[in-house]
């Protein structure tokens, strides 16, 4: 049962990774939510023992390979975000979808702050306000994304 859950988790994370690296026109790319972060958040909240922080770390490492200037940057940010989600998973899980979206918004802001800081430290500061757009679109897409992931997880709730 757990092994099956892990398979679904890995598949959904892989699909989210594909969605993240899929080439899109620039204007759409700015709006693209961080799908993999959303998937990690979903699994951290709903199955903290199957995925959790290890999933966050390895998903972040995968993001680093595809788009990170430094290996470990996204890994650190996602580790932190998934830790917060795992710690508070019982509180977040019981909230309605709208409130969950707000929490996800906050988590995405934290995620982006970590990336922003590391970008600055490693001498690659990207100061355009456009980099924050995805936190909003991620929060907006959270309710449907969570529903899709719940369906993928075979969960009826």
């Amino acid at each position, binding site marked *: 049962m757990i092994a099956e859950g892990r398979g679904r988790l890995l598949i959904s994370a892989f699909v989210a990774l594909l969605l993240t690296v899929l080439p899109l026109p620039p204007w759409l*790319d700015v709006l693209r939510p961080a799908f993999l972060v959303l998937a990690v958040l979903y699994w951290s909240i709903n199955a903290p023992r199957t995925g959790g922080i290890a999933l966050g*770390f390895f998903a972040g490492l995968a993001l680093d390979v*595809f788009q990170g200037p*430094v*290996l470990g940057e996204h890994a650190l940010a996602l*580790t932190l975000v998934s830790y917060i989600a795992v710690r508070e998973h019982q509180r977040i899980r019981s909230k309605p979808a709208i409130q969950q979206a707000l929490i996800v918004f906050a988590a995405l802001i934290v995620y982006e702050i970590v990336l922003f800081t590391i970008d600055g430290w*490693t001498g690659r500061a990207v100061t355009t306000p456009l980099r924050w757009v995805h936190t909003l679109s991620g929060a907006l897409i959270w309710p449907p994304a969570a529903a899709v992931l719940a369906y993928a997880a075979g969960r009826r709730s």
Partner: protein
Amino acid sequence: MAAFGTAAGRPLQARGGSAGFRFTLYAALAVVTMYLDQRAHYLEQVRYVLEAAAYPIQLAVNSPPAAWAWLKASFQARAALQAENAQLRARQRDLELLAMRYDALARDNGELRGLHAALPPVVDHWLAAEIVNIQLNSLRQKLLINRGAANGVFTAQAVLDDKGLIGQTTHIGPWSAEVILITDPEHAVPVRVERTGLRTIAVGAGDTTSLALPYLPGNADIRAGDLLVTSGLGGVFPEGYPVARVTEVHRDAVQPLAQVRAAPLAHIDSDSEVMLVWFRAGHPAAPVPNTLGGDLKSGNRDMQPQATAAAAGTATTPPATPSSTGQAAAPQPTPAPGGQE
């Protein structure tokens, strides 16, 4: 993957209770990874392997656009192809006319410079590479191309198209390479204004259509329409390749610096193929390969003043290295370790 495996073996309670510990562990791992990658460059091999693993995914992700382009090309009307063919033939004739005079000009140039023979062209050979994946946003402007270490591609290699400069390679995988575009906000290319010889640096502005020249004083002789060519400094691009054309110059009496924008000549957003170029090593216009080894912190060691190296040598190395190597390898009777015993 291994972490999932080990976690599965343990009882549920133990795994649930130690979130803080696991967070600390993974966060520390991430920080160490970042340090090793950024400062020490120890992870080149790891990156190489990871790039290889990522390449199939990038190929797969790019396959729908590639398939669409292929379909469009294969259903293209015969008339369109004929028109294109005629256009290409006309263009080839133009280029041949130009090339006819090239040999004579090169010889003239050699004589003017007091050389006995004309210099060979600075380009040794080149390789066409297909663009596999494009990452264009205001944060990063990167391409992934389908040539890598297996084709002899190296880090910081110049990438051009038929109109001008595109960028340079950053991370090399076995069959793929990542190219940072000159329009990436992280990228800066040393340029020269062709009309006046004024040297400056062109920095990417974060979109494919503009470069910024942020370091020109307000009274600099530059105007819209000026051609910017590579200045040959920086050790990546040889001198004289076209980069961009100045589009706007703003001079503000209050600001000490002029605000200058330029449009890159290369068709960065419509190219499907780029050229990787190898330059003749001994050529005077070729980029100096030594500077490639340098980084911002320590610079290029070969170009440092010799005094610092000598000072460092006398100060630290003799007590440390002979004793350690002497003890580790073989007890050779050298004069230096005598003081140690």
